[in-house]
């Protein structure tokens, strides 16, 4: 009875806290600009099935792809056992599904066990890949400190989940063999039927019950810890990969989206349309993106989905040749800035209200936010202007994150709003404007045909 009450209290507390955290993520994503979804809806669902559910792009690197698949499959199928843990925890039962499902129960738990062992092995391999092998993408400057620890914490949590399952199932097997009360037969599970007797064979009934209960609680508590750890870690991709893939751009990668607000201005400039006489000209228009408010909600979702695997950075020609640009860092910077802004708004830090909008009773919101900082404090010009727009990062991302879109929006802010950027580009701009070619030359455009 005490166990049941404790179980309920912990569960309610964990879910309430998780709700608060996921609501924070939701609100932070809403700081961005809403986007109108274009294109074929069925293609979006196909992407979710193939790329998110089917992990199609993970298999481009087949070794990590395969091991990641083990962890993923174990994660999904263990949820079945988790349902039973909740039933047992609330009603004080013990493995009620066994008598209902019979042989099928034995099969499902066996499958969970086999996948858990594979996931355990995969996790050990991932830990050594991260910490022992010198795989460059795990050792870039942006991976120092918290991101490195974060990656390891997740893996340790995964190990403890599997240890919990094996303790609980292994001890259960031995107790069943002893004919202990409550521990009714479930059929022999694939792994614990031999692992249990091997590890816990000589223990007394009391000790075995202790091991079984400890494993049960360990597994359950780690699941709740995991749920609440995700929103502060890089590991949100387990949920967000699905919406992220759904909302990803469907058009050709080569296309850089049109700025429709610029189109209006250019049409007026070329005399193609008349300016709207009622238009408010008091404020200079802002073009491009300076901060998270200017980015789209899809960009921000991208940032929370990024699990810092670094496939983008590993493929980036600028990064490969030693430039500062790292597409992964761009995503991490956007997320960090989003967290910072979100926290200030949640805490209603009124000193972050823009000077012009300060007044009694005004609450800090995304519409009056100005803390004197922006994405440009985190992302330097050197990074932005090293990009070749080659789309290698976009191609490399297993969950369709698009760092290039953010880089382009920030370049646009630099050029269009600040009139800043590499001075090398000015002759090219002038040439296009004045002579309609990328170089200013005295020869005629079709001079080449004279000596055909």
């Amino acid at each position, binding site marked *: 009875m005490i166990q049941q009450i404790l179980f309920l209290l912990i569960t309610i507390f964990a879910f309430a806290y998780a709700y608060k955290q996921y609501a924070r993520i939701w609100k932070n994503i809403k700081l961005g600009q809403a986007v109108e979804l274009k294109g074929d809806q069925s293609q979006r669902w196909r992407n979710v099935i193939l790329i998110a559910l089917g992990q199609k792009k993970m298999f481009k690197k087949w070794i990590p792809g395969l091991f990641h698949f083990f962890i993923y499959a174990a994660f999904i199928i263990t949820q079945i056992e988790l349902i039973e843990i909740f039933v047992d925890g609330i009603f004080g039962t013990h493995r009620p599904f066994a008598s209902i499902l019979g042989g099928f129960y034995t099969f499902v738990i066996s499958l969970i066990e086999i996948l858990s062992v594979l996931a355990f092995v995969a996790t050990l391999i991932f830990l050594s890949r991260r910490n022992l092998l010198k795989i460059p993408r795990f050792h870039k400057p942006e991976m120092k400190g918290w991101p490195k620890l974060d990656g390891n914490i997740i893996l340790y949590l995964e190990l403890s989940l599997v240890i919990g399952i094996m303790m609980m199932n292994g001890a259960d097997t031995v107790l069943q063999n002893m004919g202990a009360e409550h521990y009714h037969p479930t059929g022999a599970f694939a792994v614990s039927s031999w692992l249990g007797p091997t590890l816990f064979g000589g223990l007394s009934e009391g000790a075995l019950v202790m091991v079984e209960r400890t494993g049960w609680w360990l597994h359950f508590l780690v699941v709740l810890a995991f749920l609440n750890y995700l929103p502060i870690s890089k590991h949100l991709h387990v949920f967000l990969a699905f919406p992220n893939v759904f909302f990803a751009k469907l058009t*050709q990668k080569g296309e850089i989206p049109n700025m429709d607000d610029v189109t209006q201005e250019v049409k007026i400039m070329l005399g193609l349309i008349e300016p709207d006489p009622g238009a408010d000209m008091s404020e200079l228009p802002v073009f491009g993106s300076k901060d998270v408010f200017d980015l789209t909600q899809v960009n921000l979702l991208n940032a929370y989905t990024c699990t810092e695997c670094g496939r983008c950075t590993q493929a980036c020609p600028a990064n490969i040749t030693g430039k500062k640009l790292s597409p992964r860092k761009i995503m991490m910077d956007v997320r960090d800035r989003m967290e910072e802004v979100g926290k200030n708004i949640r805490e209603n830090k009124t000193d972050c209200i823009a000077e012009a909008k300060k007044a009694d009773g005004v609450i800090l919101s995304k519409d009056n936010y100005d803390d004197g900082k922006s994405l440009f404090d985190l992302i330097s010009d*050197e990074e932005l202007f*090293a990009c070749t727009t080659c789309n290698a990062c976009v191609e490399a991302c297993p969950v369709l994150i698009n760092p290039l879109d953010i880089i382009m929006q920030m370049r646009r802010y630099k*050029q269009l709003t600040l009139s800043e950027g590499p001075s090398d580009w000015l002759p*090219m701009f002038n040439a*296009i404007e004045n002579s309609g070619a*990328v170089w200013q030359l005295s020869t005629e455009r079709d001079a080449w045909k004279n000596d055909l």
Partner: protein
Amino acid sequence: MAELAAQGKSPEILFWVGCAGSFDARAIKVTKAFVKILNAANIDFAILGQEERCTGDPARRAGNEFLFQMSAMMNIETLNQYKFKRIVTTCPHCFNTFKNEYPALGGDFKVVHHSEYLQELIADGKIRITGDGEVKGKKITYHDSCYIGRGNDIYEAPREVLNALNNDIVEMKRCKSNGLCCGAGGAQMFKEDEPGDKRINTERAEEILDTGAEVVAANCPFCITMLEDGIKEKDAQDKVTILDLAEIIADSMDNV
């Protein structure tokens, strides 16, 4: 084009030459090779001549959206005056802007890149490959330009053009969707590199040398410039030649 229009004629193909193809000495060779192929295949084509403008690609990628859209709208206005079936261009950047970016500004044109168009001509028997050109017997590797490869998912057409040659074709370590950029895209062509350990074209040149290929087939004027510089830096210009697909085909076909 203006002359043809005045005579009331509308050609099948509008050959979009592009800035590099018009002004850059190296790219002009590609332009001429492509014209040679068009003539050999008896294609009814025209160029815009003085009326052609930069598509705006480097301006947009540098972040200068105003300049891009100005240039784009002027081109769209010019092109809308004329009748033709398709635009063919030897520049992946021009191709990409026409195909993916002009529609948002009201410019809907059918456009093909010359690597696809050459494949078409070969498949239709419009040109006959003899394989007796400069590249005969040489090992060739193909460099995927970003805006034909990843940008537009065209990986097979250029390779099929090369397959018509009967040469030994090898792939670089990073090819197709994993292909490595030459370093020119995103308007990098027009600026100095940001600080780093080496230039991107040097990295690519090393990869080319690893294949042992004697000829690199490219399909972008900016890639050609970059790769030639990279190969020169490695002092390997005597061992490796960078050629456009059009140059290879023009030199390996029956002259009609």
